[in-house]
């Protein structure tokens, strides 16, 4: 006998009457045991990963800045070098080996 709309809706809503619980396969417990003995994978959160990336970029920029500073100020080193040579000559003049 064909059902009208209301009867059909009710039959659908009540279609779970008498249902049995679904059961997993017999070998599932063995699979669970296998997974338990494996070490737990360390999960790095997305937030942690983002902070590491930000820190890496910062370090890179800092290094670039430091290198640029080094190459932009070569004269300071040269002056130091010249001063060093002068003081060495001073030492030489103080000792007159040959009169």
């Amino acid at each position, binding site marked *: 006998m064909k059902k009208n709309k209301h009867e059909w*809706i009710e*039959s659908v*809503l009540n*279609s779970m*009457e008498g*249902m049995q619980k*679904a*059961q*997993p396969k017999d070998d599932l417990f063995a699979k669970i045991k296998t997974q338990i003995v494996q070490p737990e994978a360390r999960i790095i959160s997305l937030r942690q990963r983002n902070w590491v990336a930000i820190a890496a970029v910062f370090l890179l920029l800092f290094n670039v800045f430091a290198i640029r500073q080094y190459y932009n100020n070569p004269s300071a080193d040269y002056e130091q070098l010249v001063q060093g040579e002068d003081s060495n000559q001073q030492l030489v003049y103080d000792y007159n080996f040959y009169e």
Partner: protein
Amino acid sequence: MKQVVEGKETAFRQLYELFSDKVYNTAISYVQNEQDAEEITQDVFVTIFRKAATFKGDSAAGTWIYRITINSSLNFIKKKKRSSLFYFGKQKLDQVDFEHPGILLENKEEAKVLFQVIQQLPEQQKTAFILSFIEQLPRQEVADIMETSLKAVESLLQRAKANLRKKLEKRYPERRKK
């Protein structure tokens, strides 16, 4: 649960015997696929084993296990939706032809339709409906699992049924009149 924390296999096995059907049945009602439900069940019991020490006993063990199952199932669904969008192959969920293995033969066709419309319910209504009508848990237990009041569960179930009726009205198969 204490013996599970101590790593005693017999205790864990007993827990599995007691709850595996409930976990699997709940999972399959969400994901409507036997393979996926098995995967979720596996994940749930691994979680139970690893986090048994965190179980404080302020709720029943069953309540705690159902909560883990629901969260795992909902996360699984979200993950699957994200990956299907990524591969540009969106599966039309309302067209999945799922046959629950426990349904009586005479109800199989109607049950197929019911599971299709259950999938379209909002999360909270879906959970309340699955726990109440598929798991056949008392309303108070459903409230404990969902960490809400009995009144809220009743309201969710009313809205779920109203929603289901609306969707079923649209699906009523057209019958030719002689």
